[in-house]
């Protein structure tokens, strides 16, 4: 009852429970934040658009991404992971989400940004359905806390379209 092992166990369990309560309170404080992000993406250029020998389409784009995510940062924010995904549907697939670019924002100062880049990851279809395809570009962000619940949200931008012909 009063052995070393029993006491060590009780102490450790109590300490971890207190830690858990503190983490929960820290995480809860994130709910009091009301973020107001803005974002805009333009497709500056279609660099090339080809069909691979294996039958899959692939396109390379140059994008202009600008966003202001400063309102997401709280004292409990470790970093914000932001990525841009193209979403579209095809006769074969009801949903396709292909990530084109991502970045890690480590501090509030860097959260208001403007970048021009070609797609970091390959925009490849399962099949050959991309000609003339309409797609959405969605900017997702995941707020990774120092401790606790992770929040994620997105802005969907519609109205983009791929060329009718390969080039």
């Amino acid at each position, binding site marked *: *009852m009063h*052995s070393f*092992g*029993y006491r*060590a*166990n*009780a102490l*450790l*369990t109590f300490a*971890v*429970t207190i*830690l*858990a*309560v503190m*983490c*929960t309170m820290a*995480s809860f404080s994130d709910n009091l934040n009301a973020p107001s992000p803005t974002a805009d993406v333009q497709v500056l250029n279609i660099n090339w658009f080809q069909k691979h020998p294996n039958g899959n389409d692939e396109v390379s784009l140059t994008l202009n991404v600008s966003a202001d995510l400063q309102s997401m940062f709280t004292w409990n924010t470790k970093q914000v*992971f932001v*990525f841009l*995904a193209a979403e579209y549907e095809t*006769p*074969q*697939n*009801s*949903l*396709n*989400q*292909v*990530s084109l670019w*991502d970045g*890690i924002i480590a501090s509030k100062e860097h959260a208001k940004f403007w970048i021009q880049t070609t797609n970091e*990851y390959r925009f490849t279809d*399962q099949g050959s359905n991309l000609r003339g395809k309409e797609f959405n570009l969605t900017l*997702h962000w*995941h707020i*990774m*806390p*120092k*401790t*606790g*619940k*992770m929040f*994620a949200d*997105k802005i969907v931008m519609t109205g983009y379209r791929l060329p009718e012909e390969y080039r």
Partner: protein
Amino acid sequence: MSKSPIHSGDIVVFNVEGRDIPIVHRVITVHERRGTGEINFLTKGDNNKGDDRNGIYASGQQWLQHHHIIGRVVGFLPYAGWVTIILKEKPVIKEISGTLPVTGKQVHPKDFPASALCTLCLKISFVWEKDTVH
């Protein structure tokens, strides 16, 4: 694991044939087939240059499917993983602390409040012991 569908951006825990430790990476690409509902996922570690096809997946494997995925991350509990690491590397501690029931199995949310924050397969459960002995 909650029933909501896995979309790009979700961080998932998955097993790869040939590896004994599960990997926790983010889904970057999703292709869901019409009709069969079969879904192919591609994952990538946030800090890695390339996706998991180079080095993480089994040789020849291009996609993950639902049966590979065992969990999804919803939160972080700092340093909680150290306990499993210590126990794995120094099994003697398990033997000494006979009164400390640390199981290698599933997390039980009812026992450990903070585990409700994380459906990761961090495998620790503590018992909050009441004073039943006089």
